[in-house]
């Protein structure tokens, strides 16, 4: 891993023409400046800033968790925690839906796991075609800072798989910071929630996965 440091907007990160400006950076003359508060990282001469804070920025292909806000003629309007609401069209539902019975599939207030299919000037289009997508019937929703989602998932899902194995829960992490936990017992769900909140608290530590492993051992000892 490369060296990382916190930068503030307008701070010079790199000097010289060898470097390329990446995400959230700008080149002015010979220098590269940060445009956002976050961690500056340099890989293969590409300089970028990883945001530490801020609202969720939706991207195509993201799996998110939202709440049904409104039912229209052609589908559902879903609040995914950003300024623009997501629209889930009837045609994006994998089964037959009666035009008069949209509320039987998903009613106002229901939580749903969806995938962002497209972002355009009119808004965000979502789909529930795919594995693991669709209405949430039971379980628990935890809300965390969306910038900590990559840490909760870990490298290639290492962290989330560890939590899943240790707590025997089914967990879906929405990129917008909403996490759905579904276990057999309430106790297991609460334990998973505790683990996730621990990860968000310690998100700056290096070797986090190992620390979580230790934390699980400790928690299990306390149980006995």
């Amino acid at each position, binding site marked *: 891993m490369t060296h990382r440091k916190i930068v503030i*907007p*307008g701070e010079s990160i790199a000097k010289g023409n060898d470097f390329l400006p990446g995400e959230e950076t*700008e080149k002015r003359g010979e220098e590269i400046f940060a445009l956002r508060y976050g961690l500056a990282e340099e890989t293969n001469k590409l300089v970028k800033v990883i*945001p530490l804070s*801020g609202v969720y920025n939706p991207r195509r292909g993201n799996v998110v968790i939202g709440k049904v806000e409104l039912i229209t003629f052609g589908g559902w309007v879903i609040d995914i925690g950003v*300024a623009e609401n997501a629209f889930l069209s009837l045609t994006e539902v994998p089964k037959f839906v009666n035009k008069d019975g949209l509320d039987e599939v998903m009613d106002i207030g229901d939580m749903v796991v969806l995938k962002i299919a497209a972002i355009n000037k009119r808004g965000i289009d979502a789909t529930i075609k795919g594995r693991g997508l669709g209405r949430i019937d039971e379980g628990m929703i935890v809300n965390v800072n969306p910038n900590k989602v990559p840490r909760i998932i870990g490298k290639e899902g290492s962290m989330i798989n560890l939590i899943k194995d240790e707590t025997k829960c089914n967990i879906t992490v929405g990129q917008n910071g909403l996490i759905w936990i579904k276990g057999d017992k309430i106790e297991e769900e609460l334990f998973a929630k505790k683990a996730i909140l621990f990860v968000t608290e310690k998100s700056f530590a290096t070797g986090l996965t190992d620390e979580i492993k230790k934390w699980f051992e400790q928690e299990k000892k306390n149980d006995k």
Partner: protein
Amino acid sequence: MTNKEFKRPDGRKIDEIRPMSAKVGVVPNADGSAIFKFGETIAIAAVYGPRKMHPQHSQNPEKGTLRCNYNMISFSVTDRIRPGPSRRSTEISKITEWALEPVVMLEKYANMVVDVHINILQANASTRCAGINAAAMALAHAGIPMKDMVSSVSIGKLDKQLVVDVNKYEEDWEEGEGATDIPISLTSNEEITHFQLDGKITKEELKKALKLAKKARKEIYEVQKKALKELPGVEK
């Protein structure tokens, strides 16, 4: 300057800022927040958004909107002030917006608004400067894309003497030519985003005042930078 033996009422040097302190993340429910102090002047800023602008007719489809709200808490001054918006607070809200607008990059946030709420907890002059400093930090903390930081300082002219960071006692100076108050906001490139003047001053003195502000800006910027970089468990 004009008078070498000039003594400020609180014993400060002419270019000495009151002890500053700053901290980010003080409002847990906000997307970004900061507190900034100039001695006894305390400003707290909270940023919400970007979120959808309501009502719809105020939306700007070209770029996002920055909306500032400056408010003095009723107990911030010795004589209780009537709570709620006033002529003065609306004016300072607008001034703060103009001071910050050149640096925030809201092109990507069409139809959205970023709300900045500034509350003055304790006032001892230079409140708008403390407010702008806190707001700039809160905006950065909220992850709003910005070209640069903004630091603000007030320069005063007491009779014929220029001083940095006026307090309430100095603001009410009555001897000689009286007091002139010049709040200035600068980016780290020393570009001016806000400049106000209340009183009488000559062109030469104004140039000197700007020079003093540029020097003070560096100190304020360091305080802002240090506060933003103070995060647990990360190497600096």
